């Protein structure tokens, strides 16, 4: 088990290198660069542009640019944003807690709502409750987050004035206000995942409830609640944990639309703006950090299987 996990860790480094190379090349394939954008609002001669490109290091060959960046990364320097001249590492460290908080709240809401709904739907299969849960779940999945977010803002911020319309408050400044401000965006983000988790929990539960050990437990006279929670749900949770970890990783990579609507200064907006303004160091930095999060979460999910399933623990 330990060796298995160590092996997974060792695989992380080549993965990160491949990811950074691919992202670097993809960015370079986009037409234009940061210097091009400067001409949109300033009168620059060709000589001006050439000089600016040289200053920014954009005149070097692709491999040279990549290696300069990589050399910095190894030394813990993610470079400087071409657009704002702020250190990329500082910018990312500013966003990381924001994105982490949003993703955590969203995933907790998704699990807290999605898993119980899935269980209910499985236990009452074919009933009105099952259909109602499915309908609600699919609606959540189908509503565009952009629209849903704006509707929530109009209802709860503009009309009722319960929530601030957007923005971000650090939990270290004011925990209550922080959670409160982040609640609407977390609900929007969760609306999609609730359905996914619900569907998976439902089908996993249906599979497990047919198993012999469940029938045996019932035959022994174990309380139905214990059968469901201890025997069935625990086994059904394995695929759900994987899925939860993947979804959480996806959320950590940034939730562009939701962040945009609620003006949350997270990863998604940073990344998209970075791509559109050809701010290579920002994009490279964000992707690297997001990939690290993703790998770490997958690793944790592997470890968590062991927690819920003794068969894996023994391996």
């Amino acid at each position, binding site marked *: 088990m330990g060796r298995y996990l160590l092996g997974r860790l060792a695989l992380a480094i080549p993965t990160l290198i491949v990811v950074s190379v691919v992202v670097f090349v993809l960015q370079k394939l986009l*037409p234009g660069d940061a210097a091009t954008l*400067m001409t949109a609002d*300033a009168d620059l001669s060709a000589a001006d542009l050439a000089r600016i490109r040289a*200053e920014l290091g954009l005149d070097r060959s692709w491999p040279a640019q990549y290696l300069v960046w990589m050399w910095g990364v190894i030394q813990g320097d993610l470079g400087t944003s071409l657009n704002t001249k702020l250190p990329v590492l500082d910018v990312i460290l500013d966003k990381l807690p924001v994105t982490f908080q949003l993703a955590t709240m969203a995933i907790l809401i998704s699990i807290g709502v999605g898993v119980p709904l899935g269980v209910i739907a499985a236990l009452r299969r074919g009933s009105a409750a099952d259909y109602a849960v499915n309908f609600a779940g699919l609606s959540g999945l189908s509503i565009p987050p952009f629209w849903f977010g704006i509707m929530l803002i109009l209802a709860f911020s503009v009309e009722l004035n*319960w929530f601030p319309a957007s923005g971000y408050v650090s939990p270290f400044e004011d925990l209550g206000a922080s959670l409160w401000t982040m609640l609407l965006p977390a609900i929007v983000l969760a609306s999609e995942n609730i359905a996914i988790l619900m569907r998976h929990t439902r089908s996993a539960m249906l599979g497990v409830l047919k198993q012999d050990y469940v029938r045996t437990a019932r035959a022994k006279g174990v309380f139905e609640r214990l059968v469901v929670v201890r025997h069935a749900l625990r086994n059904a949770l394995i695929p759900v944990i994987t899925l939860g970890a993947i979804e959480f990783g996806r959320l950590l990579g940034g939730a562009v639309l939701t962040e945009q609507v609620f003006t949350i*200064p997270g990863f998604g907006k940073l990344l998209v703006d970075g791509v559109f303004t050809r701010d290579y160091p920002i994009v490279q930095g964000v992707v690297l950090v997001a990939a690290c999060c993703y790998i770490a979460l997958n690793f944790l999910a592997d470890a968590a299987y062991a927690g819920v399933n003794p068969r894996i623990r023994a391996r």
Partner: protein
Amino acid sequence: MRRLALAAAFLAFAAPGFTPQAVAQPAQNTLRIGLTADPDVLDPALGRTLVGRMVFASLCDTLVDYNEKLEFVPRLAQSWEWSNDGRALTLRIRSGAVFHDGTPVDAAAVKASLDRARTMPQSLRRSELAPIAETVVVDPGTLRLELRSPFVPLLAQLADRGGMIVNAKPSEAAGTEFGRQPICAGPYRFAERVAQDRIVLQRFDRHWERDQYHFERVVYLPIPDATVRLANVQAGSVDMVERILPTDLPNARRDRRLKLADAVELGWNSIIINTNNGPKANNALKDKRVREALELSIDREILNRAAHAGEFVVGNQPFAPGNPYFASELRAQPRNVARARELLRAAGTPSPAFTLLVPNDTERNAVAQILQQMAREAGFDIRLQVVDFATSITMSQNGDFEAYLLSWSGRVDPDGNMHTFFHCQGSQNDSKFCDPRIDAALDRARTLSDVAERRKLYAEATAVLHDERPRIFTYHRKWFFAYSGRLTDFTANPDGMIRVRGLRWQQ
């Protein structure tokens, strides 16, 4: 089980531990402004965005400024004087102005700042300030700018980022990182920046005009979505926002909590046609008659109504109606589909096809589709190629386009709306359209200070553009601002900037 489900529902919808609290009202002395995007670097020499200029308006004083009638007014330069030959501009520097670190702003400091902007390798102001040959300190309160040749538009450059005075000593040490902690001489000093979240400025109590600034803090918050921006000012989460969409105006006008202000922009919107830039200049619009037919197929009023709820201003020139340089004698041709068809037949191409390059945003997407439909009635077959903004600029510069939807934010001096786009040597003349008559008029207008004379020359150049049509001007946007009903004394300026001077809460 039921308990679990209930708890989950409670968690999701009731947020345990918190009762709905009214949105926190900020301290009376803070002004929160919602911007359309996060500004770029806060260094006037390197800044390239309009939203960046919004922040500079409070952070960095310029040498001169202009009011909503576009008349120049003093800032750090208390007065100025052109030499008779137009080759020297003498500035009297205001006494008592100091930088945010306490250093006095004198002629030597202004010289150092201008020299920095003129010579720093990455500076975007080098071309703008290139007419300056030398900066000469006459005495501590007087600076003379000696020019290579007469260049009247310089004053306008000094009212923009080119004339924002920074303390050059610390800026030299900081290099391009100066923008992390800018030291200017504006009414507000830099306090804090969290990328894509907020920029906080703190009132500078030693500013020479401190009594005109009534807020202790100004906070700039990027809110990219226009509808959300409006919702924020409606909900009281911010006090003022810029650029409300025309389609959101009815909603904003109904809201009694809000006040609105607007101004017609300095800039223009146009279709530029590749007449001379590389192989793609060999397109269906090569024939001047086809370009005329294209213009005749367009109804600018309908375009304005369909794409902008009739709230913008139709235009056929590089200057909006109302601008001192607008030539009212140059009228737009009304739509005439029959005549357009006739012209196309005469040109031997009854159904010309071309590709229109469109930067991807809601406004220009809508405009492009409406143009496509209107031109179709005259026989045109327009293919739309929608790409992201940076890509579109690159393609345009490389001549990789047949026609392109291009907007310009505009400049207070007419030269900034024309020279770089229409002069043969203009760095943004992506059509590479070249006409000696235009060059002569534009070059001469740079040397004159009389508005009437200049206006005549710009009208001459515009008349050539009207005849040759390397570009078809379509409309001018309006800047719409929405702000809390409790704010008073705001004036919208055609440059779209928010000047905090004089702005205050209603007593």
